[in-house]
């Protein structure tokens, strides 16, 4: 049994979840820099990644202000280990083919959109402000990723087949998007995190709508799901992402000397 968190610790924990998810999916998208299937897609992916890293910075800065060890935003992003990371397992999954990249983005964007939609009404001005800014950007992300799910799903025989594989293989990581733990339940009661039932209903509703329009199979709501990121239990991919992402800061602390 772990010690109950103070409200400040719980809030910081939740802010780190938001920040880490944004940063890790952003890092994944950046792996496609120079390798995307078309130049327009590359620009779009990098711009989405840029929005997300900016949002991550805003959340990290708030988390840093609440940090008892007085770590700053960069230290939180670049000096923690995999077991301290709280990003959703979905965000660390590999890019795969373009269907997988866009399916991962779509599941994430739907969650992100409804989460922010709820946080803009949070009784904490700083959270509401960051969320309101981010929501405008994420609305675009969701428009784009849902359009790709539809275009590939309702496309050629091959694109349909690939998107079908993508939405199915990533499904097992979507459970934790809408399964709250005690930290989130406590914060939700104070309006500092989304209402879990509402978030689950909204997420499932929009995913069903888009998959249907994309002529893709609806996934099983009762399927077995990987949960774990909220306790720091990750898939094997996160360590490799961090090894690359944190190399510079660890080898040349804060890159202050060139």
């Amino acid at each position, binding site marked *: 049994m772990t010690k109950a968190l103070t409200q400040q610790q719980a809030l910081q924990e939740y802010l780190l979840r938001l920040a880490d998810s944004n940063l890790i999916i952003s890092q994944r998208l950046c792996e496609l820099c120079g390798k995307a299937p078309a130049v327009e897609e590359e620009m779009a992916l990098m*711009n989405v990644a840029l929005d997300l890293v900016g949002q991550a910075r805003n959340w990290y800065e708030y988390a840093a202000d609440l940090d008892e060890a007085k770590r700053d935003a960069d230290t939180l992003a670049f000096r923690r280990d995999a077991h301290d990371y709280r990003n959703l397992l979905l965000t660390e999954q590999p890019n795969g083919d373009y269907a997988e990249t866009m399916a991962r983005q779509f599941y994430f964007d739907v969650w992100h959109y409804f989460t922010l939609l709820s946080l803009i009404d949070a009784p904490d001005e700083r959270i509401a402000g960051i969320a309101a800014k981010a929501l405008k950007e994420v609305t675009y992300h969701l428009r784009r990723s849902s359009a790709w799910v539809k275009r590939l799903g309702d496309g050629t025989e091959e694109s349909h087949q690939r998107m079908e594989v993508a939405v199915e293989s990533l499904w097992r990581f979507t459970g934790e998007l809408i399964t709250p733990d005690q930290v989130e339940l406590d914060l939700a009661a104070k309006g500092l995190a989304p209402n879990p039932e509402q978030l689950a209903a909204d997420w499932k509703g929009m995913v069903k709508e888009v998959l249907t329009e994309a002529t893709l199979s609806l996934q099983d709501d009762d399927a077995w799901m990987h949960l774990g990121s909220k306790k720091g239990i990750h898939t094997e991919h996160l360590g490799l992402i961090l090894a690359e992402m944190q190399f510079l800061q660890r080898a040349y602390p804060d890159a202050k000397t060139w």
Partner: protein
Amino acid sequence: MQKPGKTPKPTATPLENPMIASDRVPANVSGEPLNEDQIWQLLQEVKDPEVPAVSVVELGVVRKLSWQDQQLVVDVTPTYSGCPATDLIEELIAEALMQGGIRNPKIKRVLTPAWTTDWITPEGREKLRKFGIAPPQGSASKMSLLGHDEQITCPHCGSKHTEQVSEFGSTACKALYRCTDCLEPFDYFKCI
């Protein structure tokens, strides 16, 4: 490699419209403190480094001027969370103000209310269009989640026959369009 015996022609000519705001702002040598109108005028010389056609005032990122004791405080709202120009814009503003004789200005980053394209001034929109960027059309508050922007007008020929190439253009704030009449590609400043 340069061929021996040939001297390259000097290519560096002074820019008519220097990028660095402090190069455009005359040094305030009179020692007279600037009034608020003059400060706004001075900030008009600070251009967006990514869209140098418009100033930070026309773009609507400078929200407010105020004084705390003797210190000028400038409220600045970034356009996008991840806008890489945010830090630079803040530095350019501070630099221009100091050039104008304002000591130690404070640049305050304000996230709320979030920046919206509705704040781009009519002059700013016209300058964007002349620069070849279609200004945001319609009002940000009416943007629908999965709907589409209204028909975008080509900034080159004025035709309404345009199509979207990508939701994102050269920067996060723009989308890529193409005119089906004059066939020119162009950036559209997205409505957010």
